[in-house]
């Protein structure tokens, strides 16, 4: 495997867990798939539609999301929203995320500090 593909895989792996957290974070109020895609994209989190839509169904199967067909607009759309378990999971994963980023940030800073010291 060449360097470019290795790097691409590493970034994909890094993003995989973050995508779920990002999706959960935007579903405190009900949204349909396409509007969620737009919303995430506007805030800088690009997700491929072919990743997002199956992910929504998986999270629903796991009981973290509820979904309902809304017939109020011109045509039916499926809306997703956090379930009780989803709210709980979001709180816990957010706390985990903050811990992780703080730790990783400090690890990176230390390494960079050492490097600067040597130089």
């Amino acid at each position, binding site marked *: 495997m060449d360097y470019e593909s290795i790097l691409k895989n590493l970034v994909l792996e890094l993003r995989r867990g973050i995508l779920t957290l990002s999706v959960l974070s935007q579903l405190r109020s009900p949204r*349909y798939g*396409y509007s969620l895609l737009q919303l995430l994209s506007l805030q800088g989190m690009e997700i491929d*539609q072919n990743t997002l*839509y*199956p992910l929504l169904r998986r999270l629903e199967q796991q009981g973290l999301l509820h979904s309902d067909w809304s017939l109020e607009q011109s*045509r039916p759309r499926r809306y997703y929203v956090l379930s009780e378990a989803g709210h709980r999971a979001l709180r816990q994963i957010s706390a985990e995320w903050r811990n992780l980023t703080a730790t990783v940030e400090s690890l990176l800073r230390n390494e960079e500090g050492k490097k600067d010291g040597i130089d």
Partner: protein
Amino acid sequence: MELIERYVSAVGRRLPHKVREDIRAELKSLILDALEGRFPDKTEYSEEDITAVLRDFGPPAEAAARYAPSARYLIGPQLFEIYLLVAGIVLAVSVFGTVMALIIELSVNNVPLAGLIPRLLPGILPGAVTSLGFVTLIFAVLERVLPDKEKESLLDAAGKWDPRKLPPAVPQQRVKIGESAVSVFFSLLLLIMLNFFAHRLGVYFKDGTQWQFIETVNRDVVAGFLPYWNALLLASLFHHVVLLVKRHWSVGSRLLGISLSIAALTVLSLMLRKPLILPEGFLALGGTAAGEDLLRLGRLLAAAVRIGLILAIAGNTVDLAKQLSALFKTKAQTF
């Protein structure tokens, strides 16, 4: 719009029945959303517009695979290698057995061997397809039955796992794949021969242009031993298929191998005491030879069969000794 219907139903066809309608409806709504998003000023969409959006959703098979809750395949990668091996052996036995049966049949009916060619394909195909079908069916069932056990053992490993209970790091005795494959082949062949072609066992000879056959085997004696041979051969088949799957010997498989060797030795010794060959059958040869000479020929054949049995007993005894020594070696390393 008809393109969208075609696309969602192509995806739906590849999905489990339970979720099909739901995913189809959702996919359709998502495609319409994507169209609106990409062409906000349009109310009517051209074929090119729809095609472009559908391309983003990917080929129906890929789209369905993203939604399918579990892998949809007949035989998975863990079992595939051993499936190929077993299918190969069964196919070889089926083809070999059919060809042999055809040759014997043609020879008995005095048809030249060239007559074999037009009968070869129609003769081989049904048996080969049926046996391959059975093997595939068995493995498809295994594929669906085995993972649960795997899950159980994984759960077990997570909960009750104790490093102190790990077996000692004994170098595992690897199974010789070739040996087991040959055993499977001959067990199957012998099973087929004994059960379907026992009445064809005898002496074949050419009398001028005619093939003649005399039954010299004592059919009653062979029939008396048949249930034991069937049980032994089936047990041996099971033993070697398990060895081929596991790829290494365990104490259990050694013990089974030893039991099978002892059982085979018993049956072979019992057979040695029975009159397997009827020398009187040779009297039917007639011709110019004297009856006494024909009987002597018969006794010679009976002696040859007895020598064959003695050789089989010797071979089995050597095998038994090897198995016992391997078992003691494993035990000695374990304790």
